[in-house]
Each structure stands twice: as structure tokens, then as C-alpha cells.
């Protein structure tokens, strides 16, 4: 994995500056600024309605921003597309019916200014066995692979993928990401939006978290996890049941819990306590020092999925 480097001298592949897009009252994208650099593999995460698809539409020039500017390779998005520098798989991208997979891929190659041989594109997308199949007879996952083939018909420098593995089974997803990694290793910049956070964790070297059209977090998966409260500490506390000594004791215990250092979140359910901590060692040390007697204590790392949920729910709470 490459580390994030953002030398100012290089032209960014993607540059969004204070981009805003409204749909009536809804602020789909709300003052978004963003630079992507060559060779990065970037995941765009966000709950439904966070503005992921609109952001990708703006980035590709399918929609114009109300405010701000969008540049790809220092030019208008359309210019970059005409120059054959961008390939994209959209959720909303349909396919032509009544033609075979091979015919459609050949068309994409013909339209591209720097095309790859169609046979190579088919193989790259895992479509060898489906070349003569009619496009309208394909399953959802197979259609996704055709979309990917269309996006990789030529030598693009930027690959944009919106929910690319929708409809694929687990093994197809694994094979798909292996292909994307190959694309990234050959120097392409890859930007993808996904619902499957383990995919972002495994593939991306930079993660963007979008929330209500704004950038909530931007960093490596590890940094995002750390920001969200990197570790989860769980244990049982007899004091909380209220059995020995009643309600007052439980209240005191809970007060002590909330006073622990480095807490990023606390959840109490019966006798079970779940804490999120940005420094688990210090929190646990303080926990034992507080006079409480936890049992079955467990410290675990937070997955990106939980980190993402923690970040977005915290933001929801802040705004509410």
C-alpha cells in the first residue's frame, strides 16, 4: 500500500473546490473540496443520501455544480473524458439491449481514443465465457462486469466506480477487487463508492467519509478507525444490575464509567458495558483504578464499518 502523499507540485487527478449542488431544498453536495493524486486508490463512504452519487456525477461532468469548480487533470471533466483519461462504472449506467457482450465491448473500444484490444478487455473483466451472450440475458453481477469492461476499454488514468460490486456474490467480488488492484498497481487512480466497508478497508489507501454532502473524514482506513475511537472495550459489571445495594450503587458505577479517560462512546445494556476508547490501555488502567470490578473484560479493534457508524451517528447527534 502506498502512503498518502500530496506534493503541491503535481497536478491533482481530481480537484473539487467548494462544490455545491442543491436539488430544491436538499443540499446534496454542500461545499465539498477535495484533491485526488495519481496512483491513489480512494474509497468514498457515506450513508444513503450522503451525496456520493451526486459527487461522482459532478466529478464526471454529468451534472454541473451550482457553485464551485470541478477539474479533472486540470481541465473540464468533459475534456478529460474526450481525451480518454476517465473510465466510469455508474449505478445508473444502463446497457444496450439486443447485442452480445462482445459487440458492446468492441463498441466501447471503438469509441475510446486509446483502446485496448477487445479480447483483453473481456478477459480483464472476467467475461471470456460470456462474450457471445446477449446483454439482456445477463444476471445483475454479470451486468456489473460488463459495465466494468466498458469502463476499462482503453488506457484510462482515472477509474471511477459507483457501488461496483452490487449484485456480485462473494467470490465474484474477490475476483473483481483483484482486477481493480491490478489497475491501481499499473498507476491508475481509482475512486470508488461502496456500501461494503470491508472492501474499502481491504482495497483503499485513502478513505473519504461523506455525510450530508460534506467531508466528515479523510485519511487512511487506520486513521479513520483511530478517529472514531479505535478500540472497543467490553465487560460485565455486577454493580449495574442493582441487585446488591440497589439503584444508588448502579448510578455511582455508571458515573464512574462516564468519567473514564479517552472515552469515545459508552453503551450500557443490563450488566454489560461497551466502551469505545481512543487509548484502550489508559482507559482500562483507569477502570481498574476506579474501584469498579469488571469481569469478562475484552478489548477488540474496531472494524472500519463500526468506525464509520460511530463517526456518522456522532455527527447526526451533533447536528440534531
Amino acid at each position, binding site marked *: 500500500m502506498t502512503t498518502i502523499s500530496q506534493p503541491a507540485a503535481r497536478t491533482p487527478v481530481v480537484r473539487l473546490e467548494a462544490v455545491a449542488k442543491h436539488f430544491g431544498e436538499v443540499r446534496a453536495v454542500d461545499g465539498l473540496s477535495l484533491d485526488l493524486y495519481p496512483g491513489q486508490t480512494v474509497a468514498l463512504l457515506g450513508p444513503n443520501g450522503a451525496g456520493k452519487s451526486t459527487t461522482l*456525477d459532478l466529478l*464526471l461532468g*454529468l*451534472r*454541473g455544480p451550482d457553485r464551485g469548480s470541478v477539474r479533472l487533470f486540470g481541465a473540464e471533466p468533459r475534456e478529460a*473524458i*474526450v*481525451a*480518454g483519461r*476517465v*473510465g*466510469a462504472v*455508474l449505478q*445508473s*449506467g*444502463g*446497457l*444496450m*439491449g*439486443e*447485442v452480445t457482450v462482445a*459487440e*458492446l465491448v*468492441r*463498441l*466501447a473500444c*471503438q*469509441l*475510446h*481514443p486509446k483502446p485496448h484490444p477487445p479480447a483483453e478487455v473481456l478477459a480483464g473483466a472476467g467475461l471470456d465465457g460470456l462474450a457471445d451472450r446477449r446483454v439482456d440475458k445477463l444476471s445483475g453481477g454479470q451486468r456489473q462486469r460488463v*459495465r466494468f469492461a*466498458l*469502463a476499462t476499454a482503453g488506457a484510462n488514468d482515472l477509474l471511477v466506480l459507483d457501488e461496483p460490486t452490487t449484485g456480485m456474490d462473494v467470490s465474484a467480488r474477490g475476483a473483481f477487487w483483484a482486477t481493480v488492484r491490478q489497475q491501481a498497481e499499473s498507476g491508475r487512480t481509482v475512486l470508488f463508492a461502496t456500501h461494503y466497508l470491508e472492501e474499502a478497508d481491504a482495497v483503499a489507501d485513502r478513505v473519504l467519509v461523506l455525510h450530508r454532502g460534506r467531508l466528515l473524514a479523510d485519511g487512511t482506513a487506520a486513521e479513520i478507525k483511530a478517529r472514531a475511537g479505535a478500540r472497543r472495550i467490553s465487560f460485565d459489571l455486577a454493580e449495574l444490575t442493582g441487585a446488591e445495594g440497589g439503584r444508588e450503587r448502579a448510578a455511582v458505577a455508571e458515573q464512574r464509567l462516564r468519567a473514564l479517560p479517552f472515552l469515545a462512546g459508552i453503551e450500557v445494556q443490563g450488566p454489560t458495558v461497551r466502551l469505545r476508547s481512543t487509548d484502550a490501555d489508559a482507559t482500562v488502567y483507569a477502570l481498574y483504578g476506579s474501584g469498579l470490578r469488571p469481569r469478562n473484560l475484552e478489548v477488540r479493534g474496531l472494524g472500519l464499518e463500526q468506525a464509520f457508524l460511530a463517526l456518522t451517528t456522532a455527527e447526526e447527534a451533533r447536528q440534531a
Partner: protein
Amino acid sequence: MNSLLAARGLIRLEVVRALRNRKFLFFSVLYPAGLFLLIAGGADAGTKAAGSRLDLAPFMMVSMASFGALTAVLLGNSERIAKERESGWVRQLRLTPLPGRGYVLAKSASATVVSLPAVLVVFLVAAVTKDVRLAAWQWLALTAALWAGSLCFAALGVAIGYLATGDTVRPVSMLVYFGLSALGGLWMPTATFPGWIQRIADWVPTHAYAGLGRSLVLGHAPEPRDLAVLIASFALFTAGAGVLYRKDTLKA
């Protein structure tokens, strides 16, 4: 011209698709020839078409060839475009270097490729079953005129395709299609209509379209009014299609 060049591959594929679509081929190629046989099949030689100096057979030949071409370009364009806008194929194409007009050009070009057999099959049936005979230059000029004139309705098809949604395109295009066919006198001579409808029909582009063909069969120069109506409607439909196309591009 540049966009037409870029659209070459797309045009080829659009033609392949159209030729694979049996239902579409039936309605645009075989159906008009069948209607010709039904209407003119029993007519004796020398029966004049109402309000025309032409015999019924050559008169209906021109009508049905026009009708076939109209079917191919109007229904072909409108339905495909509306459906493909809805499916997102149009969006997908906007991510390729193909210029936006390239898609519209490819659609219209492939529709006119299908309209050619529609015209020729009616000619063949008329010549074989009803002994319709024309000079060689007339056959050529007639084919060229009907083919070129169909561009007018191809543009109308594009406009409807960008106006209607995938759900509404069929009723809308059918309404326009039947309206143009009936009012333009493609099914029966307008001379059989009440006077006030005839006066409207004179300005309907399909009437001018078939009128162009009839002048050629009679060996005349085209009527100035027919030419004017066709050119004006071509300009109108193209402008309308352009406006609707740009509106759609801004929307998504």
C-alpha cells in the same frame, strides 16, 4: 461530420440491433406491403385514386412506402431513445468520448437504414403484383426523395424520445404516428375527407411527404408547398429535438 465519424461503430451496432428486432422489422417492412395488397390488391387497372390523376396502385404504393418509412424512423427513434434514457445507457454513453449528438445521429442513421427496405419492399410488391411501371430515373428519384424526406420524421422521433419517459413514450408516439398517418392521407386519399379536414391535411408534413413522391410518379417537379412544408417541419422538429436534448443533458 466529425461526430458522424466517431459514431460509426455505434451506427453499425444500432443497425444490427434493428435488424434483430423481428417485431420492429415486421411493422416497418412487411406490414406496409401487406396493407398495400389489402387496399390496392383488388383494384382494376385504370381505377383512379380519389382526387388524383394517378391510378390507385401507384398512388397507394407511394402512400405505403411513405408509411413504412415513417414507421421505421418515427417509432424506431422515439421508443428507443426514451427507453435508453430511462435505462441509463444514454448516461453511460456520455462517459465516452462520443459527442452527444453522435448518439442522436447514430439513432437516426440506423432508423433510415431500416426505412430503406421498408420503401423498397413496397415498390417490389407493387411492381410484381400490380404491374406498376416507372422510368428508371423515377424509381431512383422516388427512393431518394422518400428516404431523404424520412429524416424529417426521424427528427420528430428524437424530439418525442427526449420529451416522453419510458412509460409514456408508446402512447405518445402512437398518437402522433396514427395522427400523421391518417391526417396525412397515407391510409386513404385525403380527397375522401370532409373539406375542412382536407384543408388541414394540406399542411400536415406526411401529406407533403407522400405528395413529393406522387409528383415524381407523375413525372412532375415537386409542389412548392410540399417542399416548403417538409423543409419547415424538418427545421421545426430538429430545433425541438435540439432544445429537448439539451434540457435532458442538463438534468442528468
